[in-house]
């Protein structure tokens, strides 16, 4: 069994899939989204995260075996049973630790635990396929349909991502597209509408619109990094509702928030 690097494991997860879930945040992500609210999960390696008093840093990232993770996940079985919940692998990027992720998901499925992944879709199809085999629900992040813009705000182009989205859609997996709505970055009518259009084409029935929030801001300071969206405000409720209607107009179920 392989080992993986886990940033943290959260119980009573309520924003990443149905019911009450345990969310396993893996560490290491190839993207550098400017709005990322968990920058401590980006770097692929252990790192120190300094507290307010900057005295002793907290080490983020722990190498865990598949069984160790599954043991933690199994603790909340009763909560999954009662709520229709389960496990969600998130990140970081799941596809960057594909083998480890696939093994966790496989073990969970063997225990009849509902499995979900939250992914940027950025990875080789081979890795993605390996993970998808044991995934019941895919929460697929689409940040921008324009590859140049995507490169500008995330550090990578979106070609691989869109390609993976198309392929995954053909497997008839339950899939939800999630769009982080970042004012001035990807919240144009055009981008959202095109994304909904793509969902429709691919037979994906649901889109989640996640409003930008600045809760991750202070983490950047603790990691001694610069936060690029310093003065950005969250989108208004009106704006979010407007975008929701826009998505719905394409015949897609839309939801604000996870």
């Amino acid at each position, binding site marked *: 069994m392989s080992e993986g690097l886990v940033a943290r494991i959260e*119980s*009573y997860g309520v924003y990443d899939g149905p019911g009450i879930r345990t969310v396993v945040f893996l560490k290491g992500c190839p993207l550098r989204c400017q709005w990322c609210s968990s920058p401590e999960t980006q770097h692929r390696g252990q790192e120190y995260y300094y507290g307010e008093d900057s005295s002793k840093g907290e080490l983020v990232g722990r190498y865990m075996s598949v069984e160790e993770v599954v043991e933690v996940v199994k603790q909340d079985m*009763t909560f999954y*049973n*009662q709520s229709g919940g389960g496990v969600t692998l998130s990140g970081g990027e799941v596809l960057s630790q594909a083998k480890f992720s696939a093994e966790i998901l496989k073990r969970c499925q063997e225990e009849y635990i509902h499995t979900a992944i939250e992914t940027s879709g950025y990875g080789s199809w081979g890795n993605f396929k390996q993970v998808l085999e044991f995934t019941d629900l895919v929460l697929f992040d689409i940040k921008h349909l324009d590859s140049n813009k995507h490169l500008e705000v995330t550090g990578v182009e979106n070609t691989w991502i869109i390609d993976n989205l198309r392929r995954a859609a053909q497997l008839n997996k339950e899939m939800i597209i999630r769009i982080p709505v970042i004012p001035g970055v990807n919240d144009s009518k055009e981008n959202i509408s095109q994304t909904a259009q793509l969902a429709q084409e691919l037979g994906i029935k649901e889109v989640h619109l996640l409003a930008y929030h600045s809760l991750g801001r202070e983490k950047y300071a603790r990691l001694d990094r610069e936060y690029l969206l310093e003065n950005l405000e969250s989108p208004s409720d009106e704006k979010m509702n407007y975008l929701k209607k826009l998505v719905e107009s394409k015949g897609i179920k839309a939801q604000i928030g996870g």
Partner: protein
Amino acid sequence: MKDKVYQIQSPRVEKLRESVLSKRPGVCIERARYITEAYQENEAAPIYLKRAKAVEKILQNMSIYIKDGELIVGNQASDERTAPIFPEYAVEWMEAEIEAEGNFDKRSGDNFHLPKEHIDELLELVQYWKGKTLHAKCYQLLPDEVKKASKVKVIHGEGNMTSGDGHIVPDFEKVLDKGLEGIIAEAQAELEKLDLGEVDAIRRKAFLEAIILTNKSVMNFAKRYAQLAKDQVEEVADPTIKEELIKIAELCERVPAKAPRNFYEAVQTIWFIHLVLQIESNGHSASLGRVDQYLYPFYKNDIEEGTITKEFVKELLECLWIKLFSIIKLRPTSHAGYGAGYPTYQNVTIGGQNAQGKDETNELSYLILESVAEMKLTQPNLSVRVHTNSPERFLREAAEVIKAGYGMPALHNDEIIIPSLLDKGVSYEDAYGYTMVGCVEVAVPGKWGYRCTGMTFLNMLKALELTLNDGVDPRTGYELFKGQGNLNDFRSFDQLWKAWEAHIAYYTKLSVIVDHVADTQLEELVPDILCSSLVNDCIKRGKTVKEGGAIYDMVSGLQVGLANVANSFASIKKYIFEEKSLKAEELMESLANNFAGDRGQFIKKMLLDAPKYGNGDDYVDQLAVAAYKTYMNQIKNYKNTRYGRGPIGGNYYMSTSGISSNVPMGTVTGATPDGREAEKPTAEGASPTQGTDVKGPTGVLNSVTKLPTMMITGGQLLNQKFPPELVAGERQFDRFVSFIKAFINLKAWHVQFNIVSSKTLRAAQHNPEEYRDLIVRVAGYCAQFVTLDQKTQDDIIARTEQKF
């Protein structure tokens, strides 16, 4: 999903509520005056009759009133939210507090105002009682080592000696079935069977006569209200009010003497009984039992006959809740902190199942839920019995009320409580018919003795501090239990554990001694005649409850600080004995100086980083289980004073229902190896230490359910905080309901929720006037946040603040 809004519908209720809520808590001299006269007139009478005569005199002479718009009548003292005085229990503290402060209204929390003109009268009455009270006589009996341990505050039994018993649910069903005339007839029949030549017959005769006299006094008390209503009819012009008063007169002529014929009469009946029980005894936690069950036949009948509307039913219930809220009891400052916020713990239980496993929720259960939600008062303490087959609608409506954010209802789990009762020898039918009493304790209504929980407190964390210090209390310097060595002497964790076991054995014994002292004196000095006449089988046995009259009589003390003990053991085990990264000497030194200096702070952080109970981590959770079992193995060897005198049981079990004692218990305890600073509150109930349950609510339940809950029949208390955003909106609300279902399936005993943000609580601290009806869950009961002293407020904020 639109949030359900709970709004009072009836202007009458709105007015009555405002009146009771705006009343400044007071003290009434009348009871003290009349009981003193009665005792002086009946010095030679047997104690049962002396008590009966006293109750008779009080009920005949105390001021009574009917307020405008009241539907349910009957008052405990000269005004609402006004505490009567019970001098027969304790007076020394009253004199001392008045001498020091001039009144009872200068306290930091739970203050009461005694009208100036009554201060001298009270001080005079006190002189008669000095040396004769329950407290004085108990104190004479207490061995020195117990007194010492009480000063160290490793045990605390003062409540029992100054407040008496309470914690009981009488047989309301019987009264509803045959009225007090029926109770009198029962006593009469026993009296007629007596052969005075037989052993003990003379005593029984006095007891039965006292029962008859007391029940008649209650009937006459009701008739005083009938007369008052008639008098008031003459004085009012409003025809509606006239009609209502005529109705009240009619009611009070009939009940509680005769069996009620309809819902209105039934509610008035239970109020009279419940009221007089609280005038008779100074105890609190007198509870109403399964109200939705015993009132349902009246409700159903009236609805079917079309003689009552749901709106009126709700109005009556709300009038009853206002009456419950109007009752308060005066406690010594030294004990008030143990139950802060004027709690009276008058429990009402709804829901549950019958012995066939069929759910017993009915329309009245929903009306009770809704009416309590609309009132937003701290009384009654509403408890909901839940189980795996509870109706979805019931769970959701209960969750809706919880979400409204004032701590009620508390949820109690049939899935563990019923097996636990069966395990203690309770019959199958009785186990399914259980009710909550006070906060989280359970009993069979009308068949169980006093204080199924609520005997002497055991401060487990102090016991640990003493274990680490070879029985010497660092705060007072008192030596309690020496000879086991201190932390520096222990070569292994096992040695420490052996010392812990020896210490717990010692303090357990002391706590039982306190109970026995209190119980023997309560039995001798303050028998409750009305209460005994309504608990089976007191009449048949010719015994008061305290003499062994109840069918079941099992009790427990309250064990406080379990989470801190487990966390402390985990730190010591990990750092001193396993990693050896900390020396015992160094730890003891930094505890002694409360983590002073850089090194002290470093050690504190290290201790805080150690595994903590409440996160599902076996390393520490198993230590909690073991630490608690140490106590369990001791307490199971002891009996209470009713053992072998009639009741089933006569023994002890455990309880983590420590009310708010975690604050005063913490105040006397120095810094501890869990990283807790000196004087800070301990954890409460079975809940994790404030701020250490970082894995969220599932982790807490995973830890708590590892405890030997089956054996903790005295009740297990879990305070669960939920930030408001985790119950808001349909998707999160659904998850919250699932969480409750998981709680049921995990067989946890009890859970109560505080769904209020720390921001709101802080605002209330600054502007108490604006937050008068901010109700929070303290520990097994609810209190108005702004009436709590600051320490307790801060503790609640700390508990709420936790982010997960």
